């Protein structure tokens, strides 16, 4: 069979596979689940094949790029079907966010800024949900906004998800009294700057078009001095750095943040300097926070995959370096 024919065959298989399961979904099939035994067998098989790659590489044959890709695909996809128990260790920076929240009395006003868009949602959406869940559960009033155009939409998605929870549903929360979404405002960090003097000048209406002064929750909120706690979910510019520079350094708010893992390390100096009280970093931070707030969402669910992916990357680094040192010793070459 020629390569071309093989490729077409694979394509057809993928299509058939998708079609079958899609129809299955529409018909309401059960989700696919691996039992613990199957999971362990899969893990063992992956480990053995990694060993085989190690042997190949030591013999001086680097495996092809696509095989590495395949491994990553497997390491990420299969664990999604697994059911394994796992213990999540809480890092101090996540605990700090939780403790600050715990210290807030009922009825405190919390400002949450959604500064990200759908591409970073896998990391930040679980944080948003867990955060809102905690606020609603403990009767904190939530004011939402966004410096990114898509942020308020993500906020709505999170709200929808959290409100469908039984416990929260029974609280019968009202839009405008218990939470409000002020929407997006263009202007990057200048929005924060002007909010420092007057919220209303930046948000004349909420995202539904209701005038600011007619919303019971915010009509008496003049500026940051009426906000008890600020939380910022950020995946770039404008984001946590701008909130620290302006809202914290100039207006003195208490700020916590959830960041994508890429930019989280750069926030540590701010944390140590006390400009930032607590930080959730990436999906792992989300999972830890979910554990604390007892809102078990996607962050926790994805942790097995995350563990697997990390182990695979580390395994490849080790394999690559073992081969590197062996070849260096043989040829004595120094590059």
């Amino acid at each position, binding site marked *: 069979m020629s390569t071309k024919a093989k490729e077409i065959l694979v394509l057809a298989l993928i299509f058939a596979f998708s079609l079958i399961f899609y129809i299955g979904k529409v018909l309401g099939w059960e989700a696919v689940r691996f039992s613990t035994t199957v999971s362990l067998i899969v893990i063992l098989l992956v480990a053995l094949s990694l060993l085989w790659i190690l042997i190949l590489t030591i013999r001086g044959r*680097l*495996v092809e*790029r696509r095989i*590495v*890709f395949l*491994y*990553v*695909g497997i390491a*990420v996809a299969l664990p999604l079907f697994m059911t394994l128990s*796992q*213990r*999540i*260790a809480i*890092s*101090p*920076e996540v605990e700090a966010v939780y403790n600050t929240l715990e210290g807030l009395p009922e009825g405190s006003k919390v400002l949450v800024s959604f500064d990200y*868009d*759908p*591409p970073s*949602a*896998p990391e930040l959406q679980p944080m948003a949900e867990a955060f809102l869940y905690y606020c609603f559960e403990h009767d904190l009033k939530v004011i939402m906004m966004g410096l990114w*155009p*898509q942020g308020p*939409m993500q906020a*709505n998605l999170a709200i929808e998800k959290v409100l469908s929870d039984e416990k929260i549903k029974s609280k019968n929360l009202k839009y405008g009294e218990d939470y409000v979404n002020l929407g*997006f405002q*263009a*202007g*990057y960090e*200048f929005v924060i700057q002007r909010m420092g003097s007057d919220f209303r000048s930046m948000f004349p209406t909420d995202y539904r078009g209701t005038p600011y002064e007619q919303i019971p929750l915010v009509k008496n909120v003049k500026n940051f001095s009426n906000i008890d706690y600020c939380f910022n979910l950020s995946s770039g510019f404008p984001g946590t750095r701008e909130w620290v520079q302006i809202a914290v350094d100039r207006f003195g708010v208490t700020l916590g943040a959830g960041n994508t893992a890429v930019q989280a*390390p*750069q926030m*540590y*100096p701010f*944390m*140590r300097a006390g400009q930032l009280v607590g930080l959730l970093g990436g999906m*792992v931070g989300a999972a830890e926070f979910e554990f604390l707030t007892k809102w078990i969402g996607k962050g926790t669910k994805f*942790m*097995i995959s*995350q*563990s697997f*992916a*990390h*182990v*695979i*990357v*580390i395994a*490849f*680094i080790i*394999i*690559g*370096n073992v081969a*590197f*040192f062996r070849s260096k010793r043989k040829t004595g070459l120094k*590059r």
Partner: protein
Amino acid sequence: MFVIQYFIPHYPFNRMSHWFSDWFAIILACAIVLGALNLMKISIQKVIKKKPGWGYAVVIIVSFLLITVIGLSEGEAFREPGTWFDWLYVYVYTPCSSTMFAILGFFVASASYRAFRARNFEATLLLLAAFFVMIGRVPVGDIISGFMPEGVRLSNLASWIMTFPQTAGQRAIMIGIALGIVSTSLRVILGIERAHLAGE
């Protein structure tokens, strides 16, 4: 000018940053038109000359025109849920851009196998720190080091690296880069660094 406005709260200096940011935004809006026209020019040339892959150029032109026409005709509220623009954003733009970033996961693994070598002491240190952070941040780390007493497990080590040496390094880099930018900016302001503006 910006330097001045930082220190003097008085009108007109306190308005200056607002003006500049607005002007900047307007210039950007015009510049993006330039970029888009450039893209169109290249694509149309491809189609006219029937260069290889001109079919894809047609797709670029069509999808560009589609979203632009829809977005501009839907008026100020183009972003509201339920508009066609929003639909295109959610179901076309988002899957594409998310996947573009997701694909990097594969490349990270491939690069770690083929390129990330402990070729000297510095690189070794880097890879070791990466190792501990990666393993310590996920539950697997604590399963491996489960025999150790609470408090000195891999997750604690990862936390320690992040909070102390990592912060120190970030701080030094931060100060260094800030000073570098300050001095480069001064060079620009004083007109020393102007090679980039010479000739068009």
